[in-house]
């Protein structure tokens, strides 16, 4: 054999060994502790192992509105710092994608001073959209809106990941798609309802002072009154809407500036409400989650008690100091999406932007659970972005395994038919074709492991179809060889001509298929992308096995028979 043959042969052996190594852990389902050098296994797509796939959209108009309100508050504070008294006007959402908020100055004399202050303090963030007397209306700048967009996406991804990580789902995929969409794929997740709940939850965190001067009996009386008037919670309603109905109804009874909120816990398994404590809280949040930098569970080493530590951003620290200073002895409710999660007592004025929520005595594990729930809520709440679902696909595990076994059966039958045909029609050359096809499938599987791609149901379809389509390469070569033999030239020459003429045909044919595959990869989503990856891998593997590998084998074959015999 020529030296170049040996090099190519060694390359083939190398490829095969590497591929077998890559595929073995998947085929024999090695666990992580196996001694085998390669650990990575092919991951199955959602459609095969079950799970949840969702696409969430971000409503930027809502985000802009929240931002503009939050900036208005900051304006008020920054004006106050230089001695300009002002009060908040209202939000103007006549153009939903460009909301504005007004600030009314107490004295017209401060107008220029205030405008200069805002210009200097919020450069390239706010723009003055309207000026009517002492009423200044500000909107967001283009720059800050772009920034808010990208931040909203990355923060939402972070928050969703956080929530999912903290509830322990293996191999979640949380990525952005386009400018305003987030794809969440949770393969193998068992409790789909809970996962959906977790992800879909709008994280809007607020800190509000609790009014404990009104007796609980009075609150109960009010609620009873609402109930008898027909404001009742029906199954299937959204709780938050029910609460706002109650407040609407009781508007005239409640003390001004306060509304009713509930500390409510629902048992996820039974859907029963286990706790429903009403309380009277301020109707405006003094401080919201976006002023919060971080929250985490820590353990008091001396007393062996878990607590939640909070850290505020700069403006948040200042606000928190003011709020706690003015309300020592009162309770501060931590409210997520209108739901009170905890309402700790304010023991003293807290400066420096750091605070603790202690949980009192009790079973350590229970307290720990409680603390981590609160920390989770606080952290999730640091991002007030509303996500609305756009697409949601859930697959039960049984469907996936049924699909796999059916597809495997179909694939086997098809493959055996192709193999039998090859043997029958092309005899020994058919056996070579079968060998190259087997290597083809092996390389595709190894490629999937190597790329860390997931095998989806359409992906299996792609592999099954590749077997039928890849033999096309062999057929092109063999038919050409037969043609050449009919012309009466020697076996050697015929094989040479067959391979020589077939190369560009095979390449052209496969490149056009690859173009279709690339378009699919670019525009497809989820399982369809999995198919595109398999198709593209199949094309690379086909060109190698059909042309180079069969060439290698034919050279050996011709050498062994010295060109005398050609079974084709």
């Amino acid at each position, binding site marked *: 054999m020529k030296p170049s043959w040996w090099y190519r042969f060694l390359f083939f052996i190398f490829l095969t060994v590497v591929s077998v190594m890559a595929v073995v852990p998947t085929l024999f389902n090695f666990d992580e502790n196996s001694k085998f050098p390669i650990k990575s296994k092919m991951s199955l797509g959602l459609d095969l192992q079950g799970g949840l796939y969702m696409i969430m*959209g971000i409503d930027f108009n809502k985000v802009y509105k929240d931002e503009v309100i939050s900036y208005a508050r900051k304006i008020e504070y920054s004006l106050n710092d230089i001695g300009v008294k002002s009060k908040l006007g209202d939000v103007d959402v006549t153009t939903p994608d460009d909301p504005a908020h007004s600030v009314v100055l107490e004295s017209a004399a401060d107008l220029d001073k205030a405008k200069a202050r805002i210009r200097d303090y919020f450069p390239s963030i706010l723009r003055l959209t309207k000026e009517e007397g002492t009423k200044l209306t500000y909107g967001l700048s283009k720059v800050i809106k772009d920034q808010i967009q990208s931040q909203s996406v990355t923060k939402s991804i972070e928050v969703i990941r956080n929530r999912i990580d903290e509830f322990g789902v293996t191999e979640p995929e949380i990525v952005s798609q386009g400018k305003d969409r987030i794809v969440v794929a949770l393969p193998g997740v068992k409790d789909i309802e809970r996962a959906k709940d977790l992800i879909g939850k709008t994280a809007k965190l607020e800190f509000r002072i609790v009014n404990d001067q009104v007796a609980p009996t009075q609150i109960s009386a009010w609620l009873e009154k609402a109930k008898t008037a027909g404001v009742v919670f029906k199954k299937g309603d959204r709780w938050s809407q029910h609460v706002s109905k109650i407040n609407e109804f009781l508007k005239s009874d409640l003390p001004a500036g306060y509304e009713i909120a509930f500390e409510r816990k629902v048992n996820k398994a039974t859907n029963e409400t286990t706790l429903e404590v009403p309380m009277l809280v301020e109707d405006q949040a003094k401080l919201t989650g976006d002023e919060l930098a971080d929250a985490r569970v820590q353990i008091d080493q001396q007393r062996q008690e878990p607590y939640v530590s909070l850290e505020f951003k700069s403006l948040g620290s200042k606000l928190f100091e003011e709020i706690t200073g003015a309300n020592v002895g009162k309770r501060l409710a931590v409210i997520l999406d209108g739901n009170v999660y905890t309402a700790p007592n304010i023991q003293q004025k807290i400066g420096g932007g750091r605070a603790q929520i202690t949980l009192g005595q009790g079973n350590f594990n229970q307290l720990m659970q409680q603390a981590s729930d609160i920390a989770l809520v606080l952290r999730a709440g640091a991002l007030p972005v509303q996500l609305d679902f756009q*697409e949601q696909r859930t697959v*039960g595990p049984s469907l996936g395994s049924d699909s796999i076994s059916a597809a495997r059966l179909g694939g086997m039958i098809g493959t055996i038919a*192709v193999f039998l045909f090859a043997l029958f029609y092309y005899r020994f050359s058919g056996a070579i074709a079968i060998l190259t096809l087997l290597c083809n499938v092996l390389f595709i599987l190894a490629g999937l492991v190597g790329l860390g791609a997931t095998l989806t149901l*359409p992906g299996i379809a792609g592999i099954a179809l590749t077997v039928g389509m890849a033999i096309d390469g062999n057929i*092109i070569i063999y038919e050409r060889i037969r043609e050449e033999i009919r012309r009466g030239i020697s076996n050697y020459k015929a094989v040479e001509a067959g391979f020589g003429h077939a190369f560009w045909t095979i390449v052209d044919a496969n490149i056009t*298929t690859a173009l*279709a595959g690339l378009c699919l990869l670019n525009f497809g989503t989820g399982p*369809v992308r999995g198919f595109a990856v398999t198709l593209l891998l199949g094309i690379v593997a086909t060109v190698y096995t059909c042309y180079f590998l069969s060439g290698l084998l034919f050279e050996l074959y011709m050498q062994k028979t010295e060109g005398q015999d050609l079974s084709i």
Partner: protein
Amino acid sequence: MMQIIPSNLNIDFVGKIKLCATVSAFLVIASWILSFTRMQYGVDFTGGAEIQVKFAKAVEVAKIRKTLESAGVAGGSVISIGEASENEYLVRVPGTEDTLNKIEAAVEQSMASSFKDDGVQIRKVDIVGPKAGAQLRLSGFLALAWSLIAIMVYVGLRFDFKYAPGAIIALIHDVSIVCGAYALFGIEFNLQTIAAILTVIGYSVNDTVIVYDRIRENAQKNIGETVTQHINKATNETLSRTVLTVATTLFSSIAMLIFGGPAIFNFFFATTIGILVGTYSSIYIASPTIMLLDEFYASRDKKNQKDEGHKVAVPAK
């Protein structure tokens, strides 16, 4: 040496162009009409919820419909999928982003309660909001459009721009007829179908390119023969390859169609039809189009330059 197609075959493929063009035009137009009037789009494209539900025992479809009504769902549809003995159904309900989750939950709940003795099992739920549906429609369409453009450019560059329209006409022909078959048999057209159609495009153009390759080779070898002769000769020479490849690919495709399970039926329905139509179009549509274009150019040249003779396309290698 075993042979299905005799090697000395000399069929006049190009000569059948009028008949084939008529038949194909009829099929394509019929497919368009069918596609635009009665195509069953899946929730991927229309938006809505699709719930795949399986029962341990046989149940009546009417009862499922009734359950839907009692869940307060209007305009839902129920179809049986897979083998009848599998008792598996697809329930489709319309809705918008805001309502779908609630509707779907209500359906699941009332299914669970009214079929609790029948071993009801929710196997799969797809909820696609109208916004996402529009997005998916757009990307599906773009994927198809771009692949056609890319293939046209590639064929144009590798062969000659005289060759490209034939390939594209054949592809549009194939895609149309596959779509028409979906509409005719009332099979749901969804994302999987798009993937399958792109595979068909790949397969069909593969077929076309192989014949083109041979036409080019013959045109370079046998200067002096007409384009019609080149095309007929190339098609005859590659015919055994064409038939064999159709056979093997159909083995795979039909085996999956029959045994591969309901989840993948949709995909292989498209590929099975596409492979057949694609092969036909490569032989009878794509290559003869080269001749038509060649005649068109030749007659135009004649008119313009009074140039005599039938120019033979000898594309650059």
